[in-house]
């Protein structure tokens, strides 16, 4: 599970749809790996306006990364600053949660992550 995906996933439990507390999910006992992937600059620029920076800062801190700047970079900044682009690429695309859990702060549901795959199957009474 890439940090990128975590920035877009919400709790799947029906009762959580009406709660703002169900996003982002919080990693617990996370084992991380770093992949080595080619930078896709165009994709990052396309995605940047959609990234929830507050949630990303929370995730980064919870995963033990140094604090992110309080404001998201602008598209122009990212375009002209190779290092910023690399850093963002490293966090969003190359950092993966291999084992652990993702926890909803609203209902407490824990989604297990195994071999990088998060299990979002729910018992039918929660759907």
């Amino acid at each position, binding site marked *: 599970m890439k940090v*990128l995906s975590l920035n877009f*996933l919400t709790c799947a439990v029906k009762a959580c749809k009406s709660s703002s507390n169900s996003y982002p999910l919080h990693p617990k006992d996370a084992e991380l790996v770093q992949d080595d992937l080619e930078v896709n600059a165009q*994709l990052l620029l*396309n995605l940047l306006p*959609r990234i929830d920076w507050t949630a990303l800062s929370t995730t980064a801190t919870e995963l033990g990364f140094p604090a992110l700047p309080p404001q998201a970079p602008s598209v122009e900044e990212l375009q002209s600053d190779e290092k910023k682009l690399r850093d963002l690429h490293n966090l969003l695309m190359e950092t993966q949660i291999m084992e652990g859990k993702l926890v909803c702060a609203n209902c407490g549901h824990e989604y297990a992550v195994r071999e990088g795959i998060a299990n*979002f199957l729910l018992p*039918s009474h929660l*759907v």
Partner: protein
Amino acid sequence: MSRPEDTLSADVHYNDSEARKYTTSSRIQNIQASMTHRALELLDLSSPSFILDVGCGSGLSGEILSSLPPEEGGPHVWVGMDVSASMLDVALQRDVEGDLLLADIGQGVPFRAGTFDAAISISAIQWLCNAESSDVSPAGRLSRFFNGLYASLKRGGRAVCQFYPKNDEQKKMITSAAVRAGFGAGLLEDDPETKNVKVYLVLTVGGGNLEGNGGDITGVVKGMDGVDVLDSRHSNRNGKGEIKKGSKAWIIKKKEQMERKGKIVKATSKYTGRKRRVAF
């Protein structure tokens, strides 16, 4: 040919041996690849995009998204959802680049509003039509899937779902569920009337100011052979089918609309829309 969809659930049918057999068959690889390319053509993405692969399986469709050259608008980044752990296992062994979720699309699409530029689904959604236990109906699963998919796409986004309908009735059931969720929908059939017919459901999320008619289904499939444009978004306004303003049905409909826009709405309960008495 018999249809496993009619008798088994997907996670049972796609067990370890079936998943391996499926993925290593060069005949299947070729068919899935050509349908994926066709779907990409219909999505018409001009730059690297964030894509949901619905029923991604072992990644035969997804890996084409990752390897698309810049001249063709790629490479894209994708997230795949699949209900079969065995299929996902094969995807892991094949080292696909997409991020994988073990999830049942009939339970919804757990991403925040406006996440994806586009969605693709190759040979998967007909599975939603069989529900084998009593607490789930195909209609309910289809509606949860399409409502969730609609919300997870950005305004102006598109989804293309190639699927194998069992019959016309199933084709209609799936298409109308998509339209009810708010999509503009068109059906495209390649090689119609043959045993190799391929059915593509092309879906658009309206809204957003798009150049020309690029954002609407009529623009995507207009002029293509064998395309039926289905759009009931404008029905239901007048006449018999109208829902009375202020009624419970009306409130539920409004809530669904708000939810699709990603707004947070209170869960519907037996109190929803009940008259409140004036207290003296």
